[in-house]
């Protein structure tokens, strides 16, 4: 089943066209990886999906449907609750770790202290941060190291139980152990959630994704099952890019 459908999508920053005529169907409960060289528009594509692009002064043309309904027919807030995102640069709120994690749940109506604590612990465990910070959940999140901050942001995105999780190079600041931890977690989560991950780490894409999309200069060059893309790409440019691994 397709949870998100892009139909001749174009995205712009001002007059500059960043994404050009993208057609793409994202499968539910699968992990889709988006790869491509720096600046090709991967982050822009993600920001289109949860309507963050418009906040940043961009605009789109074309259609995007979420569960069969156009995303513009949803509330902005609704779509963002359903489609969570974690950015490339860690962006913890300048408040305590605990408050970072209860920020959204409280907004969505969880009042019970116990329940909140449970959420905090759960998500911290899921993101592998729990052991490191359990002593001091009241510490400002800004004092965490880069990697710790990023893991906190992943935990935070999970606190609203999204249906789709967008990840923009989430592991770029993590060491290998934590990366493995996250990858494992993503595989686990994909049974319930749909995951779209932008990554520059091709072996990561290969390891965890079911589908892979290759973008170049704002165009979707190829989109297929991961196996296919990596072993038998149709487009020559894809092949070249994949081979870059060893180059």
């Amino acid at each position, binding site marked *: 089943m397709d949870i998100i459908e892009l139909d001749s999508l174009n995205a712009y920053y001002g007059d500059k066209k960043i994404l050009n005529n993208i057609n793409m169907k994202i499968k539910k409960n699968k992990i889709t990886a988006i790869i491509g060289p720096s600046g090709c528009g991967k982050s822009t594509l993600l920001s289109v999906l949860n309507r963050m692009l418009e906040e940043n002064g961009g605009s789109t043309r074309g259609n995007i449907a979420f569960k069969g309904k156009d995303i513009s027919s949803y509330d902005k807030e609704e779509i963002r609750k359903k489609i969570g995102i974690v950015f490339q640069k860690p962006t913890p709120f300048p408040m305590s770790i605990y408050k970072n994690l209860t920020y959204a749940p*409280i*907004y*969505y*109506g969880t*009042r019970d202290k116990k329940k909140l604590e449970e959420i905090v612990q759960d998500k911290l465990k899921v993101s592998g941060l729990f052991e490191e910070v359990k002593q001091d959940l009241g510490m400002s999140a800004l004092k965490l190291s880069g990697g710790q901050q990023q893991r906190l942001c992943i935990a935070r995105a999970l606190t609203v139980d999204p249906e789709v999780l967008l990840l923009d190079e989430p592991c770029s600041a993590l060491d290998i152990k934590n990366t493995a931890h996250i990858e494992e977690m993503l595989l686990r989560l994909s049974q319930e959630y749909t995951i779209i991950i932008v990554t520059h780490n091709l072996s990561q894409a290969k390891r965890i994704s079911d589908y892979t999309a290759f973008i170049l200069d704002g165009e979707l060059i190829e989109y297929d099952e991961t196996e296919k893309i990596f072993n038998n790409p149709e487009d020559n440019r894809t092949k070249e890019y994949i081979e870059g691994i060893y180059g």
Partner: protein
Amino acid sequence: MNEKLKSTLFKLWMIFSGIIVFSSIVFIFVYIIKNGIREINLEFIFSNPKGIPLGTEGGIFPAIVGSLLLMLIACIFATVLALSTAVYVVLYCESKRIESIVHIIVQCMAGVPSIVLGLFGYTLLVANLKLGRSLLSGGITLGVMIFPFIEVRAEKILREVSASIINSSYALGVSKAYTFFKLVLPICKGDIISAVTLAGGFAMGAAAPIILTGAVIFAPIPKSLSSPVMALPFHLYILTGEGISLEKAYATALVLIMLLFIINILALALTFRRKEPS
């Protein structure tokens, strides 16, 4: 209480505050405009005060020029000192103790009544340093008055420049001075200009510090820093205090507001003009 309700109340609070601010501004402006506009014409703006008592007729041109000059001197004097102090505290000072001493002295200064500052300016500048009752003495006294306002805000503005950016600059081996002028100052130029403008407006509207140090009832446009000057707030003070003419007083206030408006626009233009060259 649930979050949605709280958020709504919160929004109400913001909107309510906005409405109060908006209506106070409108009220004050309308009140002054309504009472002052009748007297405003080219003659009022561009001629000397006349009539018996002086000010019942004629205009306020020397006061406009005098006030602008006073403000200019005050702003230069205060900005140089206040910005230096702020830079010292933020970029150079390593001792927390010195920092808090500076803070305490500066913030206590913020509350010295302006009339006392006037007496101080009179004692130091007029009587002891023999600068006379003059543009310079008045300007410096006003500068002392706005110093704390600029310092407190400049310090806050400097502190809010992201530490990682400043660190990146230091990491290039670049000196503090260069970092300050080429990186920090361009980033917070706008905020600093707005702080100085705000303080300048305050200086321009203050009568008490200049009564003893530089303002006179009538003087032509000053020819040098040592001439006494007319100033809008002092003119107002005499017009209202001695019941000379309330209409002229409102008109004078209106001119002052218009001047501040123009100055603010200029400051805005200054901050927005320089975009990155391409």
